[in-house]
């Protein structure tokens, strides 16, 4: 088993791919009986410091419907200079450049260690990256100030030749012209009126005017670039201007009467931003970065009216179909998101407010374009500041961790077909021989567009085994999948990353143990979770839970060892042992439970869940809990109420929150000031240890988690208490009869109860 773990890990490190099954059932029937679909988590741009890109174009299979890339799995005839495509078996001539090829002189792409390889291709003009700031001015003075500072700071982080633009909005929307001296110019739009892209471009003067040819004034050939650059200027040119401009930004001056929300035209502002880029720089890497401090309150895309007495929609309202603006607003933003995606741009949303800001309606903007979604309480928090800063973080090569306008192309062996993908992408609607009719996630295509991605962006891709049961695959047969990701690197280069992987086929009837052993329960949990969350977007919460439960039960029935109708006999092999627990926590997670979450929060959590890699996803499903004590080094402990002890410090990482929790005794000690006494220096160290560890996490995670430092009995402890398995509650506290742990006031079932039920159902012959 260890070998499989190693294999999985190795594969992940090399290719950024984790499959739910690492040995594939060889027929459609068997595959469906496996319950967990054959699927993988793909991190297309997984950082590979050890992988130097090659500077030439990939060699493609010449069959028009295939066009797979030459890879280590291909059969090569060195003498004939031929290679056979391992997907379609087309025999292809090597291009002339490969004339010198031989067994000892192989190109990189044929070497097994290059199952993942980067190509740098020189195609098309290089266009600079574009950053378009869309800034809400209906903020509190303090917030606005903080935001302005962050924006100014960000200018220094941008690539020097990047183009930047600025749109501000409140009651009106202003598009600022950045190149003017002496007077600052901006184009102003009404915040209540939706405009078509054409209108926007007309109004901004971006359409080529029918230039009246005037005598003695030859047409200036450079007119076009000149025009478009009025609003988008290279940062190095207008650095000072823009800094000043940002500095002079004022709060929206229109009066807000008592009992009203400020009028905020987010919908139109975004629409203009999209239209601006659409007209000037289609199909180049661009980020529209929306900074908003409240819900859109007017115009298209408004989420709530300006009357404060009408609160913004809650899950309750939505269930009761009482959210007046939701559908219309969602439609508006979806249209925008689709346009943006079609142009290869992406939208980031940085929403900082204590109340909801309409992320529910706007989520598609980020979800479909691969943009970031950040939610915070205020722009004046380190959460926002550091998160924003991290957008511009650089990798080991000193390059920005962002890529644009990617398209992902998936090729499969003929025994496999593609069911769909779940992640920050949209379908390119490329039908092909590999496309299954049964859609899982965004399906019906073998190509997806990912407008923006970073090294962590991870897609779940679902496959379907189509091999018929009566056409067995010979022993040792391997199925292969090739992922081709073309993207614009932050250095403006166009790159192609090709990952080709292969797995063995196995007959589930007689080789089930192989398949079972090759089960990747972590990947499976995440893949199933993604499916569940994906369904939750459109289905009722309880239905999704029921579906998840059924899948879990079926899995246990399939792979558990038990005697019928004897729950106590139920056992799961190691490779499955954690899976039910993941499912338990998933059921309780904010991704599927909306209770106690606002619609915005749900959207936010789901957004991140759908794009983070496996490790992060698992943390989201089942937070990690570390315990610090005098009794030894910090140790991971069960995410269970029994872990909450008086003399421990706990550190919980749930991805969105980092909670440091001081047990009752520790808290008293600290209150008594022991940490300041030299003789208790060890106590001081104990207090410091979790802080240091938390810092480490905070340093790297994007978005920066909410950092909560709390102690026993404090209200903030709820963040911890809501996550742990309620093994002890007010109901069973005394039944357990011991003092360890901390009871949770909840009616939720505990893992124990859950497992008991599961076992019962799994072994039930009635099922």
């Amino acid at each position, binding site marked *: 088993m260890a070998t499989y773990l190693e294999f999985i890990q190795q594969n992940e490190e090399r290719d950024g791919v984790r499959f739910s099954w690492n040995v594939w059932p060889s027929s459609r029937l068997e595959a469906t009986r496996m319950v967990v679909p054959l699927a993988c988590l793909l991190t297309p741009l997984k950082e590979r410091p050890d992988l130097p890109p090659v500077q030439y174009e990939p060699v493609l299979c010449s069959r028009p419907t295939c066009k797979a890339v030459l890879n280590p799995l291909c059969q090569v005839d060195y003498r004939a200079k031929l290679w056979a495509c391992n997907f379609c078996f087309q025999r292809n001539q090597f291009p002339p450049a490969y004339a010198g090829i031989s067994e000892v002189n192989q190109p990189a792409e044929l070497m097994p260690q290059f199952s993942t390889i980067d190509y740098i291709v020189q195609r098309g003009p290089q266009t600079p990256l574009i950053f378009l700031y869309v800034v809400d001015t209906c903020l509190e003075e303090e917030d606005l100030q903080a935001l302005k500072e962050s924006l100014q700071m960000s200018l220094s982080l941008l690539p020097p030749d990047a183009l930047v633009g600025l749109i501000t909005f409140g009651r*009106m929307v*202003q598009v600022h012209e950045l190149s*003017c001296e*002496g*007077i*600052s*110019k*901006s*184009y*102003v*739009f*009404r915040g209540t*009126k939706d*405009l078509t892209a054409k209108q926007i471009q*007309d*109004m*901004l*003067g971006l359409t080529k005017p029918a*230039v*009246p040819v*005037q005598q003695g004034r030859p047409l200036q050939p450079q007119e076009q670039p000149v025009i478009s650059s009025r609003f988008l200027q290279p940062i190095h040119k207008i650095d000072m201007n823009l800094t000043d401009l940002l500095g*002079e930004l004022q709060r929206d*001056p*229109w*009066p807000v009467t008592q009992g009203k929300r400020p009028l905020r035209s987010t919908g139109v502002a975004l629409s203009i931003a999209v239209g601006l880029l659409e007209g000037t720089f289609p199909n180049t890497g661009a980020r529209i970065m929306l900074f908003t401090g409240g819900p859109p309150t007017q115009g298209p895309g408004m989420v709530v009216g300006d009357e404060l007495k009408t609160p913004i929609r809650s899950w309750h309202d939505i269930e009761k179909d009482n959210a007046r603006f939701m559908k219309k607003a969602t439609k508006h933003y979806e249209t925008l998101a689709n346009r943006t995606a079609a142009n290869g741009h992406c939208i980031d949303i940085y929403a900082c407010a204590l109340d909801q800001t309409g992320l529910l309606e706007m989520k598609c903007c980020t979800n479909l374009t691969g943009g970031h979604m950040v939610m915070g309480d205020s722009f004046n928090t380190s959460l926002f500041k550091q998160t924003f800063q991290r957008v511009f973080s650089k990798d080991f090569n000193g390059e920005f961790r962002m890529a644009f306008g990617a398209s992902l192309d998936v090729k499969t062996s003929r025994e496999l077909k593609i069911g769909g993908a779940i992640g920050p992408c949209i379908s390119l609607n490329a039908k092909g021989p590999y496309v299954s009719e049964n859609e899982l996630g965004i399906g019906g295509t073998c190509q997806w567009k990912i407008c923006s991605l970073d090294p962590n962006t991870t897609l779940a891709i679902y496959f379907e085994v189509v091999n018929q049961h009566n056409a067995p695959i010979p022993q040792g047969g391997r199925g292969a999948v090739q992922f081709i990701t073309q993207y614009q690197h932050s250095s403006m280069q166009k790159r192609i990353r090709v990952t080709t992987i292969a797995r063995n086929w196995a007959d589930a009837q007689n080789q089930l143990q192989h398949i079972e052993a090759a089960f990747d329960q972590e990947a499976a949990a995440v893949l199933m979770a993604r499916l569940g969350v994906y369904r939750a977007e459109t289905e009722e919460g309880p239905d999704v839970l029921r579906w998840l439960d059924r899948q879990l039960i079926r899995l246990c029935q399939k792979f558990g060892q038990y005697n019928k109708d004897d729950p106590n006999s139920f056992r799961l092999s190691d490779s499955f042992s954690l899976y039910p627990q993941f499912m338990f926590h998933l059921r309780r997670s904010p991704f599927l439970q909306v209770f106690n979450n606002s619609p915005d929060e749900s959207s936010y959590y789901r957004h991140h869940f759908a794009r983070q890699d496996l490790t992060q996803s698992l943390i989201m499903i089942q937070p990690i809990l570390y315990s610090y004590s005098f009794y030894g080094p910090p140790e991971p402990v069960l995410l269970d109420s029994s872990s909450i002890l008086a003399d421990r410090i706990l550190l919980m990482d749930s991805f969105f929150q980092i909670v440091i929790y001081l047990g009752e005794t520790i808290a008293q000690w600290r209150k008594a000031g022991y940490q300041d006494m030299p003789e208790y220096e060890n106590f001081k160290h104990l207090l410091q240890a979790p802080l240091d560890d938390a810092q480490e996490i905070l340093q790297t995670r994007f978005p920066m988690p909410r950092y909560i430092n709390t102690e026993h009995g404090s209200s903030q402890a709820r963040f911890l208490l809501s996550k742990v398995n309620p093994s002890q509650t007010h109901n069973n506290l005394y039944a357990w009869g011991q003092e360890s742990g901390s009871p949770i006031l909840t009616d939720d079932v505990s893992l124990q109860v859950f497992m008991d039920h599961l076992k019962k159902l799994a072994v039930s012959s009635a099922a």
Partner: protein
Amino acid sequence: MSVNQQAHTGPPYGQPQPAYQRYQQPGYGGQQMPGVPHSQYGVYNGPMPGYQQPAPPQGPLRTPPTSGAPPPTSGALLPVGQPAYNQFGQGDVQNGIPASAVQMPSVSQPFIPGSTPTSISQLSSFQQYGPSPTGAQQLTNHMAGMTIGSVPTSAAPPAGVGYGPSTSVPPASGSFTATGSGLYTPYSSSQGPRPASMTHGLPPTSLSQGVPLAQPAFSGPPLSMQRLPSQGAPRPSTMQSPPLSGQALAGLPASQPNHLASPPPPQQAMSGPHPGPPMTGLQGPPPPSTHPSQPGYQIQQNGSFGQVRGPQPNYGGAYPGTSNYGSQPGPPPPPKRLDPDSIPSPIQVIEDDRNNRGSEPFVTGVRGQVPPLVTTNFLVKDQGNASPRYIRCTSYNIPCTSDMAKQSQVPLAAVIKPLAMLPTEETPPYLVDHGESGPIRCNRCKAYMCPFMQFIEGGRRFQCCFCSCVTEVPPHYFQHLDHTGKRVDFYDRPELSLGSYEFLATVDYCKNNKFPDPPAFIFMIDVSYNAVKSGLVRLICEELKSLLDYLPRGGNLEESAIRVGFVTYNKVLHFYNVKSSLAQPQMMVVSDVADMFVPLLDGFLVNVNESRAVITSLLDQIPEMFADTRETEMVFAPVIQAGLDALKAAECAGKLFIFHTSLPIAEAPGKLKNRDDKKLINTDKEKTLFQPQTNFYSNLAKDCVAQGCCVDLFLFPNQYLDVATLGVVTYQTGGSIYKYSYFQLETDQERFLNDLRRDVQKEVGFDAVMRVRTSTGIRATDFFGAFYMSNTTDVELAGLDCDKTITVEFKHDDKLSEDSGALLQCALLYTSSAGQRRLRIHNLSLNCCTQLADLYRNCETDTLINYLAKYAYRGVLNNPVKTVRDALINQCAQILACYRKNCASPSSAGQLILPECMKLLPVYLNCVLKSDVLQPGPEVSTDDRAYIRQLVTSMDVAETNVFFYPRLLPLTKVDVDNDALPAAIRNSEERLSKGDMYLLENGLNIFVWVGVNVQQGLIQNLFGVSSFSQISNTMSTLPILENPFSKKVRSIMDMLQAQRSRYMKLIIVKQEDKFEMLFKHFLVEDKSMSGGASYVDFLCHMHKEIRQLLS
């Protein structure tokens, strides 16, 4: 003087001919005066005929005329006449000079060709004349010809000759001749005396003769003026002279029936007339007498009225210089024209009034007192009635009943200028503050406390002078009465003792029950390619920098409370944030012109002093920013919308200053297309040229008015930009339009800047509502001016400045009593430029009469013309111009006919008798009829007409007076040591001498006309060049030269400029230069290029109309 009566007896038509005869005869007879007054009356007849002709296209009409007396003959004549006509026309022209028939003909022929070739053509022309527009045109042609001719004529023949031609000749001639001839013959016949003439007439040959005659004839017509008071009596003798003319006529014969009058006397007339006669003429014009026979001519002066003319010698009568006539008569050819000098002269009337009434202050204590003329300088002492500077009425004696009013046809109207500026010697209205309780008002009609309110019951109540309702005096206002029933505090309270005063309004008088904020000025500058290229943008920006220091302060404030804002625009709008805290201005572009809005709140409207640095920086940058613009498509309506929205957002009233260059063709609301089409002129569709293209602007105007947003428009067109449509908002919001066609920095800068300065600095009331209350019995029914009305009583003005005038017409709805008279109270509620809400009240008491004579004795012609012009100018919106003109003529004819019938002593129908107060009515009316709006020449653009139309609608009486009858000053006659202006002269080319320079002003332009023979020294002194040929046409100001003459002329100009609300454009015209045509257009007593009748001809025509009415 006042009244001239003419008795028009017979039908004008026929009469004309008779007129001729009469003319001569009466003229002669009556005239005797000749020397003096001349009965220019004679003239009358002449004109009349001319006109008549029009009516009846020659053929028919004429016949009719003839019908009058000599139909038969006339009939016969007619045919002949026509030919004659042609000749005439031509002849006239030429005649002017030579007089000799022979020459004439030849000349004439050429002319004819021009206008209409042969005699036949003439005929046609004839018809046109009278009756239909076409006629008019032809006439015009003739006229033109004539005039030209006239010039020469003047030269040749003694003054007389010259006159003849110039004046009447042309137009009238055309028609006249035709009829005339016909008439003539008859006349002659009738007259008996002139057999000779007759002969002339008869023979076709006469034509040639006729020609000459014709001219005279023309002059003749003027004579008809006879009224020339002076003559009062009888110009019989003169009349006689006419007869001579008659002969001449005979020559004309053919031509003239109409002419009749005019033709005859020319020379004589000339001579005769010159002399004072005209003055005298006033009295009794006309020649009623013979009408039938000698129709037109007889002029009677008032005094003379009926009498004189009566005499057969119509002609003679007509011509003042009867004597001359007499003498001349003999001389057939020469003629008979009305002597221009014998017909009422505006100059004389003005001078007389100035002399008689200029010295004493006008004290307003007396009810129904007619104030001095607007041309007279006088001081006003308010003793209970509003100063004539605020209100002038067409009549100060109102008929008691509506029947009487209808009978007289004299419109009852008041021309009100509520915020008029007073000379420094007069006290501005006192401000009365009644505190929180507000002004005292009648409970029923809501009239404000005024000197006419009657306190009763020991002062505890007062009875309303308008509706008679009794109202309690509020305790705080109570005061005891003295033994005369006057309140003891009478003299302490302006509202009890003065005609004009102001109340401080309480919050009840404010919109939304909230005291208004100070108003705002928004400057909206066109930054299109044209505007930038011409330097306009830079000019405006430079000027604004300093001009902003001179915003109106509304009283004694230390600095103006008015806030300012700036917008530039082309296809999109640029707003500027000039908040004082900014380091540099911010520009905000709004491209969504389809749905205009104001993109900023704070910082758009600012206090000048606080934001001075930012504003200066902005104004410095605007020209730079757009220096390279190539935008030529413009929007317009969104600009107004933007200004309106800005004011709405700021919750204040204000004024937009829009500087605009071209037709707004960019895609936006209010987009216009070029629909200029000169072919529509003189068709039924002509009115569309005055109507807005779309009603979009009317709706916009409505919104503007609701907000108190006044729009001033400065236009700089290089081509058609549809003033009729663009001006709608300006017009309805009480704004002003300024138009600088083909703007050029060098020549127009001065004028534009002066206008701009004046416009920005002048006091304005905002968000105003005016209501005129009247005594029971009459009611304000119609309003003219630049404003908006949402109901039938309240005049709403987004802005009302000190130059804007509203004309109000009254109609009877009941009887008035002579005892109580009729009272007017004009109340204007407005927001001052300091943001104070005020009520300005003007009260005026008028007499009532049961005798028509009283009405006619207390009329004011200048005011009447003001009303008539406005009425007509509004009429063209809905009616063909011709209909409007005819209606005008008809109304005046009725007015005068009513007088003749009811007030004048019986006299021959051939005499034209004019009321003393209205003796200038014909000449002024003719000017109105000839104005660009009602009778455009080919060179007048559609935009200019629309512009003038709107301009006139807001003019006060003084402005219309000089606009329609420009002031012509002989510069070479100035006395450099004296402050006084040289005496004005009449607007006729024959009054100009080659050796002199003249200045002509009409409120819009100043012309300096330089004769070819002007002394070089004077040229050097004035223009700084050594010879006539070096004088530049393009100079827009006179060079500043250090010599007395230059100084004096410049000081005159400065003085004139100061009198007018707009800076007048200076145009230097050299005699015989191409620009001279332009200048001649303003010589309104002459026939105009566009077909307008000469004074003399018109007078004849008028006479004919009157006689027709009387018969």
